[in-house]
């Protein structure tokens, strides 16, 4: 298969329509509404669960999102669930926007490098995961390294617990994240990390079960970003497991879940990092021996 080098394209010309004579097996292009699309998909893919996401696909929606990107505010607020994150991931994952286009849009919108550093860094993560996938191929679905939790890999369940899948764990945060995942197909990165850490460390589930569940739903579901991030949480692709506590979740979610949680007075996520560490892991050396970035924040946040 020849691979050709191409000239770089500075201006993306609109692609002219090149209709092809219809064939009975072609899927329709003329759909009067999203309801019609929903019905069509129900008919053509009866096994695919759920409904449409409120998040629309397509270049127009992507450009609308891109026009709202504010790199400096992103940098300041990105760790908060209410922060000004871009929501570009589904469009980047499917090439609706290329990473190069988004990079250039960020450059055009900042005066100083400091304003765009965080966002450019996140685009770098996307590029990194893709390079890892090219290097590892299907092996991204296997443990990259041993767990550093003190627990053998065999002690992690291969099945996602039904209460997690159904959103009835009783924890308002985790059930809320599940609801958003299943209805919209998108989750804030911090919520992904909390949910993944809860599934892997609190429920002792193998990362792969959670990662596969995410891929059923995430509009940006990219096996490389997803599987390797889950492995990063689990500690199979990092030096130590990622975990968090209630204080951390409450702070970055503005307490929106804890206020209405029926488990608020017996929250399994509550406790100091030291206490949770001895509860969750079976290691002789503290997993947090590597200096954390700052007191009170997640122990590790990429």
């Amino acid at each position, binding site marked *: *298969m*020849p*691979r*050709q080098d*191409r000239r770089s*394209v500075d201006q*993306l010309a609109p*692609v*002219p329509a*090149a*209709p*092809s004579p219809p*064939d009975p*097996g*072609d*899927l329709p*292009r003329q759909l009067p509404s999203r309801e019609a*699309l*929903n019905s069509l*998909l129900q008919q053509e*893919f009866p*096994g*695919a669960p*759920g*409904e449409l*996401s409120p998040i*629309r*696909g397509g*270049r127009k929606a*992507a450009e609308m999102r891109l026009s709202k990107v504010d790199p400096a505010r992103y940098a300041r607020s990105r760790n908060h669930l209410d922060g000004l994150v871009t929501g570009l991931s*589904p*469009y980047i*994952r*499917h*090439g*609706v*926007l*290329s990473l*190069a*286009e988004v*990079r250039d849009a960020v*450059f055009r919108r*900042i005066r*100083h*490098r400091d304003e765009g550093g965080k966002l*450019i860094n996140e685009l*770098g993560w996307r*590029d*990194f995961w*893709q390079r890892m*996938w090219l*290097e590892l*191929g*299907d092996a991204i679905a296997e443990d990259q390294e041993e767990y550093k939790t003190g627990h053998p890999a065999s002690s992690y369940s291969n099945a996602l617990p039904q209460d997690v899948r159904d959103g009835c764990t009783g924890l308002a945060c985790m059930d809320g994240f599940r609801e958003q995942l*299943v209805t919209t*197909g998108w989750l804030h990165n911090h919520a992904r990390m909390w949910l993944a850490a809860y599934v892997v460390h609190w429920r002792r589930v193998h990362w792969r079960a959670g990662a596969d569940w995410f891929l*059923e*739903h995430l*509009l940006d579901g990219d096996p*490389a970003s997803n599987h390797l991030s889950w492995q990063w949480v689990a500690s199979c692709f990092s030096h130590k497991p990622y975990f968090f506590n209630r204080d951390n979740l409450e702070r970055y979610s503005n307490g929106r879940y804890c206020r209405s949680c029926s488990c608020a007075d017996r929250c399994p996520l509550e406790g100091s990092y030291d206490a949770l560490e001895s509860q969750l892991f079976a290691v002789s050396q503290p997993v947090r021996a590597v200096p954390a970035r700052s007191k009170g924040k997640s122990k590790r946040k990429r």
Partner: protein
Amino acid sequence: MDLTNPVVWVHEEALGPANPALQDHPKAPALFVFDQAWIEAQNISRKRLGFLYECALELPLTLRKGDVVQEVLAFAKRHGADGVVTSGPVDPRLNRYATRINRELPLWILDGDPFVELPRPPRLGRFSRYWREAEPLVWEGFRG
């Protein structure tokens, strides 16, 4: 040897106007296939299919569902094509399809603009290693 009458295969990593195959062959018939084996094996939800559908509708594509390789080859035959052009996939599943298509018809793979061009393959394994090499090069494009 150049292709004189190709079709374009658009896969789910390049559903935008920056797709280099669409850019270089704007008049060629182009196809997107919903990969039924993948959808069923991974229990892909309707949300994801709807998102892909809406992305595909904004491009001049014929939409099909089924076995990707068979559908691409049938589409090429339908248009009397002498080959297939596509954008470079990352997903090994898509690369396997590309290999199978190429056994039957010449397949040209075009790469789009990269995020960063590195002088040598980076040391992967940890993001920090990659970013140490990549970050200064990414920022060379910034004219503050």
